[in-house]
């Protein structure tokens, strides 16, 4: 029987110990569930541990206490059902787009022709057809992140973990990427956890928003904005009452943490 919540986070705590200096409690007693097929945002001010939580779910960072379960199975490290999109793109500078996108498959020892065929498909899907042979330093920030996204999609995992993926690009590119991602997710149907510090982005993109408190991070509130027609008419969606109300409410809560 398929569970409704594909990811469960139970009592997760993360403390960074450092010899000599004080230990830093990044996350405290986080309890969350992520529904299948939905885009959930982790939103909060800087230092609230949202990236740490994402990387714990990804299996890249060990937790101090608690557990994370995916489809009922405990997370011990990275796995094929999860893929990651990094804030700083993390592309291999010495590889062209085709090799970068196929990298996840290369690590799984997929035969060369097969993985390049798959990579070409996703390169086209993210709108980079024709740039297969370009190297990262020949691409703009937005294009590099599309490569990162294509790489994460190419391994065909159920869960997409995105760490402020559009944080390093300008506003126009960011909006375009947001709209393109939503278009893509209509086709690809994944469970997405999306870390952001932008209220507008969270309100526009999410099916659910998890608000985290500043350090030590814990769940403050879980929101479900009802922003309709996001992908049909992005301009209208960004002016709709549901969207604007959501932004206001989020700001009301978060501004008490701004000094």
């Amino acid at each position, binding site marked *: 029987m398929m569970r409704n919540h594909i990811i469960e986070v139970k009592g997760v705590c993360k403390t960074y110990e450092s010899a000599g200096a004080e230990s830093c409690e990044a996350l405290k007693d986080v309890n969350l569930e992520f529904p299948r097929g939905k885009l959930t945002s982790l939103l909060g001010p800087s230092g609230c541990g949202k990236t740490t939580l994402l990387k714990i779910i990804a299996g*890249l960072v060990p937790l101090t206490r608690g557990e994370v379960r995916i489809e009922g199975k405990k997370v011990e490290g990275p796995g094929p059902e999860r893929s990651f999109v*990094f804030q700083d793109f*993390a592309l291999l500078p010495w590889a062209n787009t085709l090799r970068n996108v196929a990298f996840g498959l290369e*690590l*799984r020892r997929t035969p*060369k022709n097969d993985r*390049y065929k798959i990579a070409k498909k996703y390169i086209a899907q993210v709108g980079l057809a024709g740039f297969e042979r370009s190297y990262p330093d020949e691409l703009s920030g937005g294009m590099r992140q599309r490569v990162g996204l294509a790489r994460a999609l190419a*391994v065909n995992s159920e869960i997409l973990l995105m760490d402020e993926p559009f944080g390093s690009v300008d506003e126009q590119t960011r909006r375009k990427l947001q709209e393109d991602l939503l278009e893509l997710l209509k086709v690809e149907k994944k469970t997405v956890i999306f870390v952001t510090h932008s209220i507008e982005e969270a309100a526009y993109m999410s099916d659910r928003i998890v608000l985290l408190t500043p350090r030590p991070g814990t769940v403050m509130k879980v929101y479900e904005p009802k922003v309709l027609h996001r992908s049909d008419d992005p301009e209208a969606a960004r002016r709709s009452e549901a969207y604007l109300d959501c932004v206001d409410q989020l700001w009301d809560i978060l501004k008490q943490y701004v000094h």
Partner: protein
Amino acid sequence: MSLQRTNGGLLRPLSSPYFLRILSLVAVFAVWELMGRFGPNMAIPPFSATARGLFVMLVNGTLPKAYIETLKPLAVGLILAATVGIGFGITMGLSRTVEWFTLMTFVALQVSPMAAVIPLITFVYGLGFTAKMMAVFVLATPGIILNSYQGVRNVNVSLIQMSQAFLANRPQQIIKVIIPAASNMIVASLRMGLGAAFVGIILAELLIAPTGLGDLITYYQAIGDYPNMYATICSLVIISAVSISLLKWVENTYSGARGRKKPEKQDMGDLAE
């Protein structure tokens, strides 16, 4: 518009970088010539005498023969230093344990006056080929190790985490991410090693037992033939500068090829190589 005019015509050669380099060399040679002819110290020969000596020694085979003699322990020592140095440097970068045990040793070795180590080498290895090869090895290796180690340590953590996220095991992380990312610094370390190797071999030939170029320098100094002595030293400066520049060119082509070269063929298999 007036700028355009001054940049053209007669004054254009002045902006060429080669012109300025040649001009500076000519200036140095001119000063040298004057110092040699009218200077206070008779031990400094004029540029013209030195140049003549250099030409003569090249033509009559003295210099080429000495170079072949010197090059043998230099080449062997350098190849050994490169192999051991890069291998060990990478290991140090990958293993905290190895780093903890050995880092201080190599840092200390790199800053120590290596000329003081030469008598020790003579004590252990004697006066022959092995001793000179070891002198090259001991001088070149610490720098190669430290630079290779730095190259590995400085790899962007994000890249390694990315490969872990996509399920790379440790060998895959090392071969597909860490070593390619570190390779620029590793190739640069070879250039450093070459410079240190030249120092090593000359020190060895001057301090251990005279052969090759060291023999020439010692001999000409002993008989007071300063033009030929300086000619030998100058040839060394030229050769080491040229070989290090060549290595720099290889370095640039290599790092350029990894990121810039566009493959000619159209088919899929070649696209990502």
